[in-house]
């Protein structure tokens, strides 16, 4: 479907963006839009075979960006907007600017979040695509992503541009970028501590980033007017404590759980049925994914320890 097509990917240096870039850079005419604020990331995108363009679709002119893409994959987002105006500019208006610019595309894929769902009293409730939305999770993040979904729907209708909103759970396991799982693994490796919510359970249905790359084509096939919605979620739900008990087993170190309101409301599991019906079961279960993420981290931690040891001499 995508082979030798002209693709625009935004948010390329994010965990998801980078995995998709790595998957498709060789076989497609792939333009990679990002701010590339991380040193070396521009050249790294170039080395993958993508055409990197330094551009923030929320604030910059799109003049340098060609308009004739076959497909657009919009992963750019601001995860921590400071206020409503910032959130609307970055997570809503930018989408409209991008859709307008790429109006001749065959399909537009937009990354949203499971945090837009209205929190269910049961932490183990599996959100389905038609469940009620509406939450204040992540400060102005979820609200601005909710307005952003409105922008995608509006743009799709106005431009007749088939679109799909992909609501992602925690995506983890990539070479670039971080997630709450990696953050917590790093914190655990450094301190032995694992934060858990101050009250209630934290349950996730995390999705390994390699599985995200597999979801691109099946998701694009669902793109429609009015806009379609698809949960990007793993097949399994896992309790946060269970996940870190497993990390503890692998590292031979028992995690010290301590309660913190920093993790309150961070969870949420999604129903994978629709995703499974179009893309089959995921390839990477959470245990395998967490082990791989840990191996990657452990190596870097070991290397860092060695380097600082050498410096100390």
């Amino acid at each position: 479907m995508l082979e030798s097509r002209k693709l625009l990917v935004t948010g390329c240096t994010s965990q998801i963006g980078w995995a998709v870039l790595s998957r498709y850079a060789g076989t497609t005419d792939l333009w990679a839009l990002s701010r590339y604020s991380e040193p070396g990331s521009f050249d790294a995108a170039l080395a993958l075979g993508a055409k990197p363009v330094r551009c923030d679709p929320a604030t910059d002119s799109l003049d340098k960006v060609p308009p004739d893409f076959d497909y657009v994959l919009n992963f750019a987002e601001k995860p921590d907007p400071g206020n409503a105006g910032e959130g609307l500019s970055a997570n809503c208006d930018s989408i409209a600017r991008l859709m307008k610019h790429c109006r001749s595309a065959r399909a537009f894929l937009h990354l949203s979040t499971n945090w837009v769902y209205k929190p269910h009293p049961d932490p183990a409730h599996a959100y389905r695509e038609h469940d009620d939305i509406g939450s204040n999770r992540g400060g102005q993040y979820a609200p601005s992503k909710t307005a952003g979904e409105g922008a995608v729907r509006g743009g799709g209708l106005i431009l007749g541009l088939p679109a799909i909103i992909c609501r992602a759970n925690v995506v983890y396991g990539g070479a670039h970028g971080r997630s709450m799982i990696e953050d917590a693994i790093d914190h655990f490796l450094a301190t032995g501590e694992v934060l858990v919510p101050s009250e209630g359970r934290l349950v996730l249905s995390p999705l390994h980033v390699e599985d995200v790359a597999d979801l691109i084509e099946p998701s694009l096939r669902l793109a429609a007017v009015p806009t379609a919605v698809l949960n990007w979620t793993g097949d399994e739900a896992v309790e946060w404590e269970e996940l870190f008990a497993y990390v503890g087993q692998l590292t031979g170190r028992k995690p010290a759980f301590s309660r913190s309101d920093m993790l309150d409301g961070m969870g949420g599991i999604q129903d994978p049925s629709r995703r499974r019906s179009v893309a089959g079961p995921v390839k990477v279960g959470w245990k395998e994914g967490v082990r791989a993420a840990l191996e990657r981290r452990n190596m870097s931690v070991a290397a860092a320890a060695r380097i600082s040891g050498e410096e100390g001499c």
Partner: protein
Amino acid sequence: MLNGRKVLITGHTGRIGQAIAERFAPICDMWGLARYSREGSWEETVATGLTPVRGDLGRGSLDEVPTDFDYVLNIAAAIHPATTDEGLVDNCEGPARLMSHCRSAKAFLHVSTVSVHKYSDDPRHVYTEESDIGAGIGSAYGISKLAGEGAVRAGAIILDLPTVICRQNVQYGGAHPDANVIEQMIDRFIETGEVPVPSDHEYFNSADYLYDIPDWIEPCLAAASVPPAIVNWCGDEAINWVELFEYIGQLIDRQPRFVKVGNFPFPNSVQDPSKRQSIAGLARTPWKEGFRRSIEMRHPELTLAKVER
């Protein structure tokens, strides 16, 4: 500004839309877009001086609707969607379809709601146009309107259509048979002497007087821009619920019997009127004057006492 212009209005079969239509129909070529499912609504629209045209923003065709409007006033909303999915069709996709249809307009006015804000527990919290957005004030309605603001922002940017989003508080004041939330409470007070109050907090809103709203249409259209401007539609004063009913009690010479309820139905919703004041001046009707007139309209059988304002 609207004088002699071709103007499309939606939601004119509701209270706010009707007040606006009555004001401007005599001076412009105003068309009223609705489903006209309620019997008599077509004829009422004609009687108001509008050209009725059948259409459905969210779910049906707009084929019969002309496209060459100078201004669009989108006041229609689905106020009680059963689910957010349902609300998204009417309150998010609907406005986008309307913008697409009327893309050559000079300006598009979209009525939104204070319910797009993230709810604040502080009863005296004042929502400005820049305050946090989110969930909590209006459940499925508020969220579908928030997504609607997203769609309207997208429409403005994609179509380069100057737009203004007007976030409405709660209005009062018409003789419309379909009483709004505050007037239902007033009717209940007049009937029973009872007034529900929240059991554990004070309640304030900044309700706007229905017939003041048309004053704001032209200044808001003049403020339309890309990306859209946002203007709060609210009264100039924060109204304390208990004070309101003590005042109404004086008017009708009946002591209100305040009944504490745990699930008080209205969230605190005081908005900052200063932006609207800066473009359209002070609201014409102070709340004491407005509620007196409202009761006179709705209850002509009552003789109201003279009360110091």
